[in-house]
């Protein structure tokens, strides 16, 4: 995973959505999801409208539907949970095809599926139109503590390096005829994990030396200071504001 996965998620492009500053997009997606989550689940049509909004945003970003749908697969474990719900929940039951299903369980399942899917779709849209580095800078501009941003960017930078090391260790194990097949082999895997930790930590110490050698004193120099114009904020706000309107309708109707 690591950055390796991340730039697979990112789709290079020059759409209006790509051009928006990252912090506007992050704020917009966050507000959108917040609005979706606070919509009453009985307003089924509202979720349809939200889906249309996301589809419109994806269209503006020129992200193909197939790409978006494929990325939604990450949700699958919770879909399983949602599918179980009608069987487990209590309250009055309806009978569909010979199975007794709880009404409130069905609503609960619908609630999780709809809101979860919309949330994932919005996040995927954000990640596929914003470069990794931009995302981190955007978080920093949204007042996330700089130290946290630094840690996150180191994690992204070295995620690949460490994953590579892990892969090489696995290949080394395989080359010597070892294949983890069951509980008996946990010891070997754990030794690899231990070695990986030591390597990671020592690399951290070396990176620190390299940074100090170039004058690092605890704060990252701010190299670019992008600011968003009023128009950019307005454009980014279209999605959550439209969603808010739908949400308010959902509460009143």
């Amino acid at each position, binding site marked *: 995973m690591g950055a390796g996965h991340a730039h697979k998620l990112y789709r290079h492009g020059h759409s209006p959505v790509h051009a928006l500053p990252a912090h506007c997009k992050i704020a917009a997606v966050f507000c959108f999801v917040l609005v979706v989550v606070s919509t009453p689940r009985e307003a089924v049509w509202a979720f349809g409208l939200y889906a249309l909004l996301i589809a419109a945003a994806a269209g503006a970003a020129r992200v193909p539907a197939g790409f978006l749908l494929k990325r939604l697969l990450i949700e699958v474990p919770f879909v399983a949970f949602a599918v179980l719900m009608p069987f487990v929940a209590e309250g009055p039951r309806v009978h569909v095809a010979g199975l007794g299903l709880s009404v409130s369980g069905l609503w609960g399942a619908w609630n999780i599926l709809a809101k979860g899917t919309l949330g994932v779709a919005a996040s995927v849209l954000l990640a596929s139109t914003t470069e*990794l580095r931009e995302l981190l800078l955007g978080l920093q501009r949204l007042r996330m503590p700089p130290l946290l941003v630094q840690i996150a960017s*180191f994690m992204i930078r070295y995620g690949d390096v460490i994953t590579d090391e892990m892969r090489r260790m696995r290949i080394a194990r395989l080359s010597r005829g070892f294949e983890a097949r069951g509980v008996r082999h946990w010891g070997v895997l754990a030794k690899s994990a231990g070695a990986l930790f030591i390597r990671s930590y020592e690399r951290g110490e*070396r990176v620190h030396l390299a*940074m100090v*050698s*170039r004058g*690092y004193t605890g704060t990252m*120099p701010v190299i670019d200071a992008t600011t968003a114009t009023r128009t950019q904020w307005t454009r980014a706000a279209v999605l959550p504001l439209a969603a808010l309107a739908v949400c308010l309708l959902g509460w009143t109707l």
Partner: protein
Amino acid sequence: MDPLSTTTPAPAPSLHVSGLAYAYPDGHQALFGVDLTVARGERVALLGPNGAGKTTLVLHLNGILEAGAGSVAVAGLPVAKGNLAEIRRRVGIVFQDPDDQLFMPTVREDVAFGPAAAGLRGAELDARVTEALTRVGMADFADRPPHHLSFGQRRRVAVATVLAMRPEILVLDEPSSNLDPASRRELADILRSLDVTVLMVTHDLPYALELCPRSVVLSGGVLVADGTTQDLLCDEELMRNHRLELPFGFDPRSVTVPR
């Protein structure tokens, strides 16, 4: 310029190490009194077997380790707590593993890190970054993440990250390790084209011969030899005593050193 250099008519040497001794906190002593002077513009190879104290010496040059005894001065400025920021600007260390050195998400940001930490901003910073990347032939890769580059390209960017600070002296730790012959030659061309003082820590004796007219041998925590690289490499007894070995079939006498 600085107060010390006014006492001597000639410019202060790029590096002046005298009587340097150091013991690690665990009691293991690595350096036992090292004296070394590198004049401005010189290219010197620091040779020595594993565990001779080469890396320990390098970490003293920019004040990461504090001398137990003796002193280090860079272009006349002593390495001491008060002027570490300036010392670290003057001494550019290129570490062995470029993945340790290139810690920023893009090449451009990484090269900008040092000058930006020193307070440079805006167009001046951009110009500095472009200049450094051009000197190592990596200007086209400015916006790439470092892990997408080949090992040789990463090493060159690592050199650019310290060149961007306009250092007085460039210290390279095993610059030729893990490079294929072409990358090795490209790096040598780059290093030769630079007009900075170079101290190169290496096991790669032919590389030292190719690049550095002068070599010093560090063994057991003291300098045991100092002379022209060709003379040192031809001194079989010295080589044997300090675990220095030439690659198979390489005869330093037969080489005409490019100058």
